């Protein structure tokens, strides 16, 4: 079990390192279409 955990840590570190190297984020690339903002905006407060 110890070796499995160490292997898991190595995999996590490797994936994180690769993501950091390529500037990758699994939550999206931040890229959007033009003019997507809801024109007029307005508070979210109700």
């Amino acid at each position, binding site marked *: 079990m110890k070796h499995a*955990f160490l292997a*898991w840590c190595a995999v996590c570190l490797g994936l*994180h390192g690769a993501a950091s190297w390529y500037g*990758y984020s699994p939550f999206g690339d931040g890229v*959007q279409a033009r*003019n997507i903002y809801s024109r007029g905006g307005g*508070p979210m407060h109700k």
Partner: protein
Amino acid sequence: MSAAATKSLECPACGGAIELHAAGYSLLHVCQYCGSEIDLVDDTAKLIAQHVEAAKALVVPLGAKGVINGVEWVCIGNLEKHDGWEGWEEFLLFNPYHGYRWLVLTQSGWSLGTPILSTPASPTQDSFRFEGAGMKRIYDPAASEIRRAIGEFYWRVKQGDEVVSTSYVGGGKVLSCEMTGDEYNWTLEEFASSKGIATAFGIEDTGQYPRIGDYPQPHQPNPYSDRAKNWGLVAGIVFLAAMLLSIVLSFGGERREQTFVANPASSARSFSLGTFEVTGRARPFTIKARGEPGDNNWMYLEYTLTNTATDEEIIASQPIEYYYGRDWKEDDRSGTIKIASVPAGRYELVAEIALPEDEVRANSSRGWGGAGGTGRPVTVEVYSNGVFYSNLFLLFLALFAPVLWIALRAANFESARASNYDGEEDDDD
């Protein structure tokens, strides 16, 4: 204590071959074949009580030898006890130079008990200190009955004998006290692994909690607690290394900052933040903006990152808003967006600002349409690199989820252990 001689004799009752391993020390032998009690005080074996019982295979056979902590012990006797709740076995071990030990087999595993001649405390006490460790009572005094006795003993024991016993735990050891009349016999018990006992005596591994039993022994080391600490340490080190790696890899970008005042009356609200060279590998772009859209108003920034060689565009946008009421406020006058994995190349970044007046001038009479004709400043700071904190957050979850899992197992282990103590809550009750 001089070396004991091994002596052979025949059971006066059944004629079975008996081998004494502590001849000269034992007072009594209970025949393992028929259960008859044989007095060993004199040189001749005298029959005290004759029984006819089927021989029972013992987990540690009489005469079996095993080395524990560097000392060779021979198993000379076996007691089976029951306290009305559960039963256990005690194997009497003998070494002519080290005396007697008890190997106790409960439903959860093994202990090695050393009789102690001192009196650590009164068995009426709930707690006391022994050899620097705080001992706490875990089992209230309760009667137990000897249901079977086989082999050699240094006292006259017989089936049906009763003793009252109580136990304390502390410092990873158990102190148990057996009371018979005015006589107190204290034994210091240390946990013994089933694998170690099996190896020592060449017997089958009987297992230990959690493989057998419903709860661990009071002094059984929690196999998960050290693992949880070690795993937590490893996870922490890996996380710190990953943070360091992220920080190091975030160096080397180009930084630009520009302040622009957006004039509602003018449609020229586009400005360039310069060119950026992304070399070697893809990198993220970090864009921070802070602006003053005015009270209860917004402004909207749209960024276009254009590869100067291919004219490929990457679009990103960012609202800047500030709304408030009597008892609430939504302040988004500053914010950060990140564009992931911008490939290597040369890029120009252009920001364009949109204002409410651009589209809904007609609504301005409803008090919503803007902050008047004053210019609204916005400062944009761009860095052609960065750190995704969400990646670190995911890494934290991935690393510490197994640690949490093992920590919960450690807690469950202790919970199961405590459930068997007297005075503790037991779900089975």
